[in-house]
């Protein structure tokens, strides 16, 4: 244990276990990884790790939503997407295997809500689709296709027909999906 335990007191560890869907090993692992990221922050030591550092993690590197994920889980006052260790644990907990559908869908919604306005409107959806189809031009959808796609999505999911998908509508859709829980996972 040595260094790890000195940094992560036992009672805090048990509290973390209580509050997340992670096991003890996972928390310790997360702590190790997090401290490594911290140490790379040359010079001054801070309790937060900047978004750039977090995004160097291989688990997040190729994720098209990596920046959104950081922003959603960050409790930083600066809105810079930097994560404290607790934020990091929150992230891992939400993406862990045993997290409930409810919490996963909640965070998924916030990740997809690019402008943080509490609903997924057409612009959010467009951004979302663009993130899914990748950055290169040849995989992009044309404007016509995009329009069609978004109108289809809204037709399906927008139950109250206000032109946006809100959280409960989103959760309604997600809860029937067979794949969501198994794919909305990040394992360290």
């Amino acid at each position, binding site marked *: 244990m040595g260094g790890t335990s000195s940094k992560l007191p036992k009672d*805090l560890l*048990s*509290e973390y276990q*209580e*509050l*997340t869907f992670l*096991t*003890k090993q996972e928390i310790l692992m997360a702590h190790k990884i997090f401290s490594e990221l911290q140490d790379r922050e040359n010079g001054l030591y801070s*309790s937060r790790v900047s978004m750039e550092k977090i995004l160097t993690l*291989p688990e997040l*590197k*190729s*994720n*098209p*939503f990596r920046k959104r994920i950081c922003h959603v889980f960050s*409790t930083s*006052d600066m809105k810079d997407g930097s994560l404290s260790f*607790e934020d990091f644990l929150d992230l891992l*907990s939400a993406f862990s295997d045993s*997290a409930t559908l409810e919490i996963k869908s*909640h*965070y*998924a919604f916030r990740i997809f809500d690019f402008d*943080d306005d*509490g609903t997924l409107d057409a612009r959010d*959806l467009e951004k*979302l*689709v663009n993130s*899914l*189809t*990748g950055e*290169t031009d040849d995989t992009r*959808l044309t404007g016509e*296709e995009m329009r*069609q*796609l978004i109108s*289809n999505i809204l037709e*399906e999911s927008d*139950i*109250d*027909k*206000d032109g946006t998908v809100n*959280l409960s*509508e989103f959760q*309604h*859709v*997600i*809860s*029937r*999906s*067979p*794949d*969501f*829980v*198994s*794919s*909305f*996972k*990040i*394992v360290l």
Partner: protein
Amino acid sequence: MPRHKLIASESDVSIEVDVGKDNEFSLYYVEVEENSQGGQEKQTTRDGKRRRERNGEVSRRRASEKRTTEVDTKRAEKKHEKRHKTARKEGEKHEKRQRRKNADEEEAEEESNKEKKNIKNERTKTLRRDDEKEKDVKKKRKKHVKNEEDNANSGKTKQKDCHDMPLKEKKKKRKKPETTSESESKSESDSAPESKDNQAVGVLGSLTPEELEKLKEAVDERKKLIATMRGKPWPMKKKLVVLRESQEFVEKYEGALGKGKGRKLYAYKVMIMKKWMKFQRDFENFKTACIPWEMKIKEIESHFGSSVASYFIFLRWMYGINMILFGLTFGLVMVPEALMGKPYGSIPRKTVPREEEASAMNFAILWDFGGYAKYSVLFYGYYNSQRAIGWLKFRLPLSYFLVGVGTVAYSYMVVIRTMARNANEEGGGDDTSFNFSWKTFTSWDYLIGNPETADNKFASITTSFKEAIVEEQESRKDDNIHLTRFLRVLANFLVLCCLAGSGYLIYFVVRRSQKFALLGLENYGWWERNEVNMVMSLLGMFCPMLFDVISTLENYHPRVALQWQLGRIFALFLGNLYTFIIALMDAIQLKRAEEEIVKKNMTIWQANLYNGTVPDNSTAPPITVHPADIPRGPCWETMVGQEFVRLIISDTMTTYITLLIGDFLRAVLVRFLNNCWCWDLEYGFPSYSEFDVSGNVLGLIFNQGMIWMGAFYAPCLPALNLLRLHVSMYLQCWAVMCCNVPQERVFKASGSNNFYMAMLLVILFLSTLPAIYTIVSIPPSFDCGPFSGKTRMFDVIQETLESDFPAWFGKMFSYASNPGLVLPFLLLLVLAIYYLQSTSKTYKRVNMELKKKLQTQNEENKKKNKLAALKAANELEQARKAGEQRSSSASDLGVNEESSSIDEAGHHRQAGQNGRFIHPSQSQHTQNSEPPVSSTHTTTRPPASRGHTSSGHLPGHPQQPQKNSHSNRR
């Protein structure tokens, strides 16, 4: 902590709260508010001793908000001094920030309160009163915990708590009772809390068991909250605060709960519970630590996505099952026989016959599981029929039989249980009403951590989008349907030909091998000896490729094509397996005929042996003959076991060799020849191979089927399989990582899990059929195996019942097993199945109806919402025209209240929707009119009540009351 830091954090918070976009604020407003409340409560209790002081503060604050900040800071400092030294720095800091936020919120709150003059002022008053009273309580409680009166008091407050809790959001169950009352006073009408408060004051002096009960309930609620906290989407800070508070609460009151004698017991119980929880958690940790290959699978997951990883998870699952099977056969059959049974060479069945002795140690023979391997615990024939062996009086034949049955029963249980669990998880996964939404919201696989895979995934998502759009646009264009039909029929015909051909080939080969066996295998080479297995393996290797080619004729959608392909391979494997079994049955008949001859010869041989001596003189010492020289029957059971073992071995070998040649060699060639080749090998023809998930899973399933089939006659099979799976795990992991490329056509992992399981179940059933048939209908060999000498294998049960159990038990058993009882029982079972089936059908129908109802409900809601929104907009417009600039914000509120009250009169559930519809236009309105009075940011912020109602109703439950509608958004 120095003061300036506090101030800095305060400013931080104000930035967060105020500078943030209006919309955003309205979304997360409630959360912030909750936060602040939490902090506030905590603070209140902690500062219980300083009640008077704080009361002063409160009044002061009410007088001027400007000073509040200062006061709060002071308070914070005091509190800080008071704080425990061991408190963690981090927690402290964030708690303080919370408090700052809280102060800020209070400020804002009060400003808005001021604006909403009449009602809101009263509310504030109630709030304060609440605060004060609670502080009273808290103070007393702290001073003398033992005082029951205090308990009564708190019990009373708790009671209130409990009543409200179920209705409210769990979140509001805060540590201190005041929270609930506070939030309650906020969200409900103002008179109610007041009266409740009065009640609380009235009962303050008495304690009844009822109230104790309430307190207990409250404690239980806390506990539940602690247990469910991890499922709440709050930031960790908040969770930590709430957790600590709840734990404190529970600790404090749990001990005080029991009275007199009960108290000790209760405390003891609580302690045990705590220990138990801890143990459970540790055990959970231990369990996850024991799961093997987690890292390997994770790595594959990140490179190839969840579909490839699902194969390895399936493999691991299989490994687990085989581990159990192995444990059973090894522990209860092989080890007892090896340790306690008669040693090798003591009786004929445990000795290598004389004519085989010379070659019994040859590697080729051993590899073929002949020679010494054949006469060992690995096979059925070695076991002795002695009823009880060793000093333990271990009933080996019985154990052998029960283990055979038990392995199958266990497998059934596990497979069916897993299937049921999967079915649960899948829910209504097959309805396609959210096709596009699912594609958008759930298609990304967050496990992917490899750029190349990510690119593939991007491409496949794009394709699926485009496909879906095209499909949507032109629902179906049938160009030359006749040609397609003809091609499909042709393809199926070809496939059938292939299947029949392969079946015949196997039958032919098996018959030929029997001929070889009759003539003596020694005269033939390796090929003749291993012909059957090789042919089966080769067919299993090449036929799927052929099917793949044929399926291009059909022009199906990839998903459908994949299913066809899987179905065909399944049929092929099954056909091969069954041809093999039928051929084996023939072999069994041959052996039994041979056995008859041997039996006859045996008597002649015996007569020859006792030649000259008087056979009926039993006292004469028997002539000792070495067991190797005694003639013996062919023992068909061992033969069957051997066949299966050989099959498994050759199957394993082919799998590994295919892996090495097909994947590794190909990858090496492509990689290194690419530099000196005329076309691009990496992207051109050979390319790297993809990992064939479905084919591999099928292979695994069939392999398992063979294990189930053969395990009864060769107890070593589970062990062999375990070895094979273990090696497979490492070899395939390595092969996948080093020579495969991520799939282009992604086969969804979760949807197919139950498909695989269903196949496994079918295979399990089909493989137990022949095993059961042989056990039940063919008499065991007369001179080998644990059941030798009996007419049927299951007679061992009868024998045990007669000799090991009291007579009445046997009688009862025979009564129970007579047809008169069994048949009604079967009938009952059938009836039960029928009943369950029809109930499930009914449920399904009810479900469908409910779905329909929901849809119509939603339609209705939509209309009403539109109407309500229109009305509200109209009224807003009027108010805007009527109101001067000065009172614009106030009139705004009035309109909102009015409209919601109208709504409530009509439909309660509309409130949430309504609020949401009003909100945007209203805030826009406020911005447009730019009220000069509200120069501060707080006026543009929607008041708390609207913050609550800003979410829509849950589509699935449109009738839920308003309170629940905001619980959904957290």
